């Protein structure tokens, strides 16, 4: 007779627990587009006069169509146009004076599809991300990511700040 503990049922117990966790597991992909909302204030925001060349207005209507600076645009061209507007490589008169003055204004309708809205937002964010990446490559020879030293990120973000203002949506379209 040995005095060893019989451990053969240990595996069964562990199996039972394992199966329980297997069943209840959902490896959720907790990812998304992080946004910082502006604080709420009861007063009407003071109107600012902005030079129209510095404002990049994006309107999305209830039919999910885009109007960028007054002309209908396909969503596939939005990223390039945004990038061109912010960086203004050719120093054109009608695009932003410099990246720090560029303002993206996004306005949608209450009847706009959420999917379309998120895609538009995604494209605008992508434009900034690509510009940050280019700047980071030029300055530090590394791709832009959140893991860079804070000072570098500050430097990059200071040069090309992301200013995206969302206007109160219109309510022409039908909600469902």
């Amino acid at each position, binding site marked *: 007779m040995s005095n060893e503990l019989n451990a053969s049922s240990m595996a069964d117990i562990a199996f039972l627990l394992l199966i329980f966790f297997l069943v209840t*597991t959902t490896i959720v992909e907790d990812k998304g587009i992080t946004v910082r909302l502006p604080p*709420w204030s009861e007063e009407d925001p003071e109107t600012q006069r902005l030079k129209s060349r510095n404002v990049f207005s994006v309107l999305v209507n209830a039919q999910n169509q885009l109007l960028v600076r007054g002309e209908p645009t396909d969503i596939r061209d939005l990223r390039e146009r945004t990038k061109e507007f912010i960086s203004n490589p050719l120093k054109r008169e009608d695009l932003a004076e410099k990246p720090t003055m560029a303002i993206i204004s996004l306005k949608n309708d209450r009847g706009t599809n*959420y999917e379309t809205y998120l895609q538009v937002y995604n494209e605008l964010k992508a434009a900034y991300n690509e510009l940050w990446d280019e700047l980071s490559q030029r300055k530090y020879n590394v791709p832009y990511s959140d893991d860079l030293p804070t000072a570098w990120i500050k430097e990059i973000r200071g040069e090309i700040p992301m200013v995206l203002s969302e206007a109160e949506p219109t309510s022409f379209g039908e909600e469902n």
Partner: protein
Amino acid sequence: MSKFNKKRGKTTPAISTASLPDIIFMLLFFFMVVTTMRDAELKVQVRTPFATELTKLEEKSLVNYLYIGRPMQNFQAVYGTKPRLQLGDKFATVADIPLFLEQHKIKVPESRRGAITSSLRVDGTVTMGIVQDVKTQLRKSGQLKINYSAKKRPDMSR
């Protein structure tokens, strides 16, 4: 030389299963770590859209979830097919958001409360009206850090 035929003729010993529990425990711990308990049963259909510029939500305890979508088939008789908000495990209205946020907030240590993120899990087919109402309510409640939940778009070539 008896050195080489010592074990000849003996029955093969049973495979030792002593290390089996260890292996199973290893698996168990793996699943325990990656598991996130489904704390709320979904009552609305949520199929989040695809996007590319994603950030990962790091700390699960600092995240609260707001679901917006059409009620599931078995709830449609009562709640209709219009998009609804779900907080925790029940249907809610926009007015319930401040209480919901507060209930989550008290579980978080005071020093970490600034880092609380609201994850908006919104169905792609929903219109912006209800999303806008929720956003406005979040702003009024001072919950400004939000995350539009989305899936990684599979192909990179748009």
